[in-house]
């Protein structure tokens, strides 16, 4: 028996969420007294593969080859299910990344397993196996008991810390060629958006709403984000109006995020917006209206005009960063 963790890479480099997933899976494996096996799919260098050991995996399976070097969620699901069977895995952990969300349900069916998505903390294993997952678009949590022998867990990015370990892992090739039917859909092209930091994984997020008046005013939002090393986000009307791409839209119908720090500028704090951001650890709100609902959901508030406050925050962020070095 073992615990298997799928570690996702972006163009050959493991995502931060992959290390979170290993750390999380490692805690489960330790509790169960089982071996932790990490599975990487696609073209990843040996140096990179070895990193999996530094977070608790004792064995790293490397599935690569022509057919697997382009991401394909259907084919990857088959590889993960095959590895889970080969390793006799009892718990399979993935990150609830975009790909992870498309892979986990397939894996659960292939393995006749139970599935819990968007899990936010370690399972409680006291005879029963229960997990806590996000529900109602961030307005609540559900506690789920997993009844099946095999359990698939997708964990919410940023919900578990990366924990280095003194282990080193043994890397082995995992040879598996998925069926032709797994390749009915093919990725023709990958297009990068301008922003470099991925929003779901970002620890710091600077977000702005209709209070910014127009897309031409986003320069200062981007600058603040850049100084802090943060990702940028926006409210729904902003992306609907085409001021910002839909990929930046956070909230109930956008992306749900849980960064350490969420700075919201010129956003009213409608319930649908709060739904996707309320699990941020610290929320700072800048709004010129002292009655803006967002202040009720914030840790820190500044009542003021964005055009006056944001330049001050940029200076403050620069000074803060300088004081850290």
């Amino acid at each position, binding site marked *: 028996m073992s615990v298997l963790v799928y570690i996702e890479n*972006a163009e050959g480099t493991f995502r931060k969420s992959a290390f979170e997933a290993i750390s999380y899976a490692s805690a489960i494996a330790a509790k169960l007294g089982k071996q932790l096996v990490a599975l990487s799919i696609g073209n990843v260098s040996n140096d990179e593969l070895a990193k999996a050991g530094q977070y608790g995996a004792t064995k790293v399976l490397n599935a690569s080859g022509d057919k697997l070097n382009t*991401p394909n969620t*259907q084919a990857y699901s088959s590889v993960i299910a095959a590895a889970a069977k080969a390793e006799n895995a009892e718990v399979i952990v993935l990150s609830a*990344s975009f790909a992870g*969300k*498309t892979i*986990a*349900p397939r894996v*659960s*069916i*292939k393995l*006749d397993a*139970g*599935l819990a*998505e*968007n899990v936010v903390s370690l399972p409680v294993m006291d005879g029963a196996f229960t997990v*806590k997952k*996000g529900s*109602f*678009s961030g*307005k*609540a*949590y*559900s*506690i*789920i*008991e997993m*009844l099946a022998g095999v359990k698939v867990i997708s964990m919410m990015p940023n919900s578990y810390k990366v924990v280095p370990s003194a282990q080193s892992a043994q890397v082995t090739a995992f040879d598996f060629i998925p069926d032709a039917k797994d390749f*009915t*859909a*093919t*990725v*023709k092209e*990958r*297009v*990068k958006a301008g922003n470099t930091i991925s929003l779901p994984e970002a620890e710091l997020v600077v977000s702005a709403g209709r209070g910014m008046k127009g897309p031409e005013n986003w320069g200062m939002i981007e600058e603040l984000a850049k100084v802090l090393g943060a990702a940028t986000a926006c409210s*729904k009307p902003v992306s609907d109006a085409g001021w910002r791409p*839909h*990929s930046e839209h956070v909230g*109930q*119908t956008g992306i749900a995020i849980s960064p*350490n*720090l969420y700075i919201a500028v010129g956003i009213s704090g409608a319930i*649908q917006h709060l739904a996707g951001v*309320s699990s941020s*650890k*610290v929320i*700072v709100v800048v709004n010129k209206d002292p009655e803006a609902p967002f202040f009720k*959901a*914030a*840790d*820190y*508030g*500044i009542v*003021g005009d964005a055009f*006056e406050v944001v330049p*001050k*925050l940029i*200076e403050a962020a620069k000074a*803060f960063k300088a004081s850290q070095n």
Partner: protein
Amino acid sequence: MKILVCISSVPDTTAKINFTPDNKEFVSAGVTFILNPYDEIALSKAVDLATTNNGTVTVINVGDPSTDAVIRKALAIGATDAVRINAIPRDSFFVAKQIADYAKKNSFDMILCGRESSDHNGSSVPVMIAELLEIPCILFAKSLTIDGTTATLDSEIEGGKEVITTSMPFVAGASEGMAEWKIPNMRGIMSARTKPLTVVEPIEVAQKVKLVSYDKPILRSAVKMIAVDDASKLFDIIREEKKII
């Protein structure tokens, strides 16, 4: 072109979420249920595709008779007919099994879902249906075009998008951008009353997960206001008090 659209009935987006004192059940009294916003995008796209391709749109819902109002709304938006699998959904696997079973018996060119439901947020039903039918699933689909027998979809990924092509049938999970939300007009509302709604009894499905209880996020302590003139201290304050940056 035969399109199946999966719809779910969810608490209104402005609803406050409350549970019974033992946290075991959601309190639905006073809550309006609506068509899941993402499903509405999927449905709008399906109606557009059916109009230009001389097709039909069947909406399917797993639910008890209380969801009929939401089904009628979907018919008013433009679905051709509706199917309700007569069962209270237990989990995503249960729902996916019912829909996949129906889809197997009635072959469709594509199955459109919302990328997630706004109550359970699992994103699992579309993928599970696809796996049960052994066909592709493009979740987080921001656009969908059909050219002959090939579909092209833009799918969201971290930091960008993928352009994916597939033959039919396939499952897609509609995300914002795929279509404009449609508002039912008077004619739609009138005709919705007479469009067929077939009720089908559920199949047996093994249970693999069980909802034990709900929990609410911990309330934040009262907001701490910072004067504009003190904005320069914001990050030091956060560092000192919250130790997160």
